[in-house]
């Protein structure tokens, strides 16, 4: 059976992890490679790095990060953040990234998805979608959820799939940071509507939230950041509970 995946997400700036990290046994909690290695040892199935470096050197710093991770880590990882063109993707692929995640650039230029899928295969192209409810509609947002677009979330995701997205990373900005659980209603609607894998993101605060998202929506993977970074949920404990609920996981 194909396992449901558990994915820690690391925010990286200038080659260093940002957001607090609370692993007692880390020599350097700001070192993304050491953190990634730690997660892989705990049983993370995959990692996502979100690079928020804003300097002109950003592609170079991302490539260095990806190379350092690929040298040391024996599980797949995705890199996202400011990828705008084929040349960015090509550099990251050659540095060892398994997938790239595209957000704003795809909304602004949807044909970029077709180009990326043609050049590198659909398995390389993750479309990240930040969604927020406005007047009872799910609307795609950019800039970390601050900037609403005119696109409705489900309609945009279906377009992304038809253009060659290999996976959808769906973050509910209404749930993100609340620790009240994933947006299971929207996730189920999206998951039932597409034939590519869906990663749930936003709202994880307790082990039960992961049980709920897999049972209620059947998404393929669940992503979280702070509950893992602060040690509030340990991946081995989480997977044991999922397994005891008859949810297929890799242990």
């Amino acid at each position, binding site marked *: *059976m*194909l*396992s*449901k*995946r558990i994915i820690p997400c690391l925010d990286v700036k200038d080659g260093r992890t940002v957001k607090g990290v609370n692993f007692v046994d880390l020599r350097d909690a700001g070192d993304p490679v050491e953190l990634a290695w730690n997660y*892989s040892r705990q049983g993370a*199935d*995959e990692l996502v790095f979100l690079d928020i470096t804003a300097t002109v050197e950003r592609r170079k710093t991302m490539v260095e990060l990806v*190379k350092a991770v*690929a*040298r*040391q880590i*024996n*599980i*797949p990882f995705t890199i996202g953040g400011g990828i705008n063109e084929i040349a960015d993707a090509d550099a990251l*692929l*050659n*540095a*060892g990234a*398994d997938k790239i995640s595209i957000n704003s650039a795809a909304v602004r230029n949807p044909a970029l998805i077709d180009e990326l899928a043609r050049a*590198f*295969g*659909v*398995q390389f192209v993750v479309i990240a979608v930040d969604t927020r409810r406005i007047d009872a509609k799910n609307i795609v947002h950019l800039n970390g959820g601050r900037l609403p677009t005119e696109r409705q979330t489900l309609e945009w995701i279906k377009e992304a799939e038809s253009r060659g997205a*290999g*996976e959808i990373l769906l973050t509910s900005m209404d749930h993100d940071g609340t620790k009240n659980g994933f947006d299971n209603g929207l996730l189920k609607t999206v*998951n*039932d*509507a*597409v*034939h*590519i*894998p*869906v990663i749930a993101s936003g709202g994880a605060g307790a082990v039960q939230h992961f049980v709920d998202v897999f049972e209620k929506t*059947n998404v*393929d*993977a669940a992503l979280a950041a702070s509950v893992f970074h602060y040690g509030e949920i340990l991946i081995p404990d989480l997977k044991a509970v999922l397994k005891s609920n008859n949810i297929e996981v*890799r242990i």
Partner: protein
Amino acid sequence: MTGIILYGAGNIFSLTAALERLGIPYGFINSQEDFEKFDRYIIPGVGHAGAAMDKLEKTGLVPAIKALKKPTLGICVGMQLLTSYSEEGDSDLLNIFPIKTLRFQDSSEYKVPHTGWNQVYPEKDNPLFKNIPSGSHFYFVHSYFIEYDKTYTLLSANYNTEFSASIWHDNFYGVQFHPEKSGVYGETLLTNFSKL
């Protein structure tokens, strides 16, 4: 020493990084003369099987690959190239294994690409899977699969159909998953291959 056959199909950084972590020496094969420098070979590959076959044919290495007598491991699309045919691009392939590469039927229940960690089960005894328990998880990401075959399937896996997670015929091996991304058991497999 392991020779990695270079033909321009996909990035091999993660594969060489894994070999380096494991202390497995490797080099590259660009031309026919390079084959004799090595005692085993890896055919990597990601992306489109038909496009990969076109690139491989342009290298002129196809006759030499078909004639190899030393252990040879195809990974992912590199494994699919060993079969006779792929539905991807309606492509004729190396035909070292007289079996076919087909596309998964997609649905909201069975997403395609088949992405993530799936369990594999040995169909035969082989040192490639020494110290790897039956039912271990490996990392897959692919839309096309090699059909299950009683003669050639070395490891089976299940998605919406039973398929070949690994194939074996004489000195030729293939794995559909990515051993370089499959945690400790993936590393065990690469080490086992280096000792075949």
